[in-house]
């Protein structure tokens, strides 16, 4: 009897040590909490939108839809964190730039064009290129000039939204072409929100990259021990730079979704504070913010935990003034319990408890 119990305890303590455990547990707890308060929380219904397309709706769909941007950014942020041991705080501003460039290409000189001046794919590729260049700019500062990532990216954080406004001469372009709205809404005939599809595509893409290249090994090695990596023939600078460029691609994708959601842009509020959510996602995933080993899946789940939390707070109509406080409290609890130190402590407590029981 005792033996079986010990065995169970071991499995449990092993489970707790798993990096995925905490974000998954947080996700489950929030879902269960919501289910208790509202049994229809998980309900998904198929309806039609105003132009007659089938769309899925329900809280879960909304969470998956609205969490897409942070999830995509979490991918790049995880790599940057792992390689450089710091975070990029300029992603929100960079999203504004990417979105602005995209609109600029699509609208040409007219801010309210009847038809698009260039194919959407061209606009996206240009914005992608620009976002990668800005990523590279941050990357060069961090990798070659050895500036603390948070300080290096502060430059773009401060200047980014002004640059975004400057790209469009401070005008606010609006796109009336319906197909542009597909990326932030629904593609006719497909009831799943497009941002979710894009996010899944990004996850698959990074999954394949991690499987078929050495990105994970190289990034982790550089993040853990730069000097040793160098003596093993790696180029730490290049790998750090690469992580920022990959984050740049993520930024461009998010830029596309963000401007597509509204078919326009507001330079000062678009993707506001999204960098904090992306960093938080990485932290909630139990990844060390000091760099090194990382779990991509945990970061992505962390992103959806944040969205679940936001939606929950909206759902419970938390008063506006108290909203940040509620969020802060939950986040602090989550971050603390997902810290490696605390995880170790938990698992050792469980072991102790188990041995006592057996004795």
């Amino acid at each position, binding site marked *: 009897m005792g033996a079986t119990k010990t065995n169970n305890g071991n499995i449990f303590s092993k489970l707790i040590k798993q990096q995925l455990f905490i974000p998954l547990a947080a996700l489950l707890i929030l879902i269960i909490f919501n289910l208790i308060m509202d049994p229809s929380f998980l309900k998904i219904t198929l309806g039609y939108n105003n132009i007659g397309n089938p769309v899925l709706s329900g809280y879960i769909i909304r969470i998956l839809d609205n969490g897409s941007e942070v999830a995509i950014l979490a991918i790049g942020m995880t790599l940057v964190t792992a390689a450089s041991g710091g975070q990029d705080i300029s992603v929100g501003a960079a999203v504004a730039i990417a979105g602005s460039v995209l609109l600029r290409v699509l609208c040409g000189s007219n801010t309210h064009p009847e038809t698009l001046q260039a194919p959407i794919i061209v606009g996206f590729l240009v914005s992608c290129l620009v976002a990668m260049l800005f990523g590279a700019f941050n990357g060069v500062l961090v990798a070659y000039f050895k500036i603390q990532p948070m300080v290096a990216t502060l430059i773009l954080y401060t200047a980014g939204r002004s640059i975004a406004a400057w790209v469009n001469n401070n005008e606010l372009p609006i796109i009336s072409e319906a197909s542009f709205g597909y990326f932030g809404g629904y593609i006719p005939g497909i009831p799943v929100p497009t941002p979710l599809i894009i996010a899944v595509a990004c996850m698959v893409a990074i999954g394949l990259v991690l499987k078929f290249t*050495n*990105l994970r090994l190289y990034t*982790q090695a550089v993040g853990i*021990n730069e000097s040793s990596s160098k*003596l*093993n*023939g*790696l180029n730490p600078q290049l790998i750090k730079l690469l992580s920022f460029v990959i984050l740049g691609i993520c930024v461009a994708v998010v830029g596309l979704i963000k401007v597509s959601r509204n078919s326009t842009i507001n330079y000062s509020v678009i993707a506001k504070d999204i960098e904090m959510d992306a960093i938080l996602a990485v932290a909630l995933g139990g990844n060390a913010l000091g760099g*090194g*080993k990382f779990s991509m899946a945990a970061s992505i789940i962390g992103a959806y935990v944040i969205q679940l939390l936001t939606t929950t707070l909206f759902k419970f109509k938390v008063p506006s003034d108290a909203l940040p406080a509620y969020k802060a409290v939950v986040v602090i609890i989550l971050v603390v319990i997902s810290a490696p130190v605390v995880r170790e402590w938990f698992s050792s407590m469980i072991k102790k408890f188990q041995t006592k029981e057996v004795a």
Partner: protein
Amino acid sequence: MSNSALLEMRNIHKSFPGVRALQGVDFTLRHGEIHALMGENGAGKSTLIKVLTGVYGKDEGQISLEGSAVAIHSPQDAQKVGISTVYQEISLCPNLSVAENIYIGRTAGICQNWKKMNDGAEKILRSLEIPAKATQQLESCSIAVQQMIAIARAVDMDCKVLILDEPTSSLDEQEVAKLFKLMRDLKKKGVGIIFVTHFLDQVYEVCDRITVMRDGKLVGEYAIKDLPRVQLVSKMLGKELDDMADIQDEQQAYKREEGAVPVLEAEGLVSDAGIKPFDFHIDKGEVNGFTGLLGSGRSECVRAIFGADRVTGGTVKKNGKPIKIAKPLDAMKNGIAYLPEDRKIDGIVGDLSVRDNLILAQQVLKGFFKPFSKAEANKFADEYIKLLSIKTASADTPIKSLSGGNQQKVILARWLLTHPEYLILDEPTRGIDVGTKVDIQKLVLKLASEGMSVTFISSELDEMLRTCSRLVVMRDRKVVGELKGSDLNQNKVMNTIAGGEK
């Protein structure tokens, strides 16, 4: 020179968990004396200094200054009683003025009389003949002058005992001469100076007495004229000059094939790590080594060969063909492997698993887009864990949780997996248990017999003598000799290391 004792340390003991760092050490410093504190790595020099300056508390023993016992519990206490330290890295503020640096942190109150301060500083600088102005920004002074200003600051704090911890390692010869002049001036003023250095020549140039330590114990205190260099080296290494006979039997008799082209040949190689240009070659199946005291430049030489430091000159030929090694990857592609001196800093990737650590170098050689499959990686890991009998719970265990010896074996396995033609082992046996040491030595000889060329560096001379058929001897960052055949014995090696008259 008065002969009365200025500082006396008696029967000092200090233990850290698992290590007895100081065991009954005595140390005496007299007025107006420059006293060298010598010993190899781990001898206990820095622990002794830290006990003296209050960084560590002592477990046992007394310290007395000018005859009366003093209690030193913190660096502030040490400063109060007149013990000042100048470290290798300058711990001043580069963006403040010279005067500010001299007075920082020791003016009473919050008001500051700038004029008085600058005048005072100017006076000190002049009295010590330091070529700097009080109002000059510290940054704009040369390193040597900054070092002197650090000393001036110490001296001005009424210091009776001045500790100089490797102050000369970043100075050139002229700067060293200036520093020595300053030291002699202070000596005339009656200050007792403890001088920690690795440079033998400097010891004999400036010091009056030498205290030698080894393995946390006092070896002895000697007047400089009573201790010839070779004796000093032998005391530091712990080998008596007389008992040289017993080791030579295991000596490798390496026979060079006539007309064979060296596997690697370097000419005038020099890097930015401060070594003098050197020539080097190694043949197929040969085991050779770099020897010399710590800091003599032996690691820097092999780092230059591997491209680990920035190479600033010289040519390298591999199997007779000129090659260019600008970075480690170039060396790796040319079949060179390098096990670095500092396992923790340059070797292991702590949080990664044993498996990932093991395949790292080979994986980098294979390329970014061609990762090993899980099965392949596991196969390599299992193979080498078995081959080198690495004790680990599994291949998934993070390498940092292994013991030092097993970590070293993983790093060794990492490089063996790349099947190098030329393997450089820099202190592969440092800090690991005796059993593993022997394993590694045996492995080196086995690899060589299979045709691999190996350069082996160790602080332990007998280890070197047992494994190497040729030794390159270094002193003060220069290659000063090469020994082989019958010259490979302790006496000869120590004489060469010591250099000079004897």
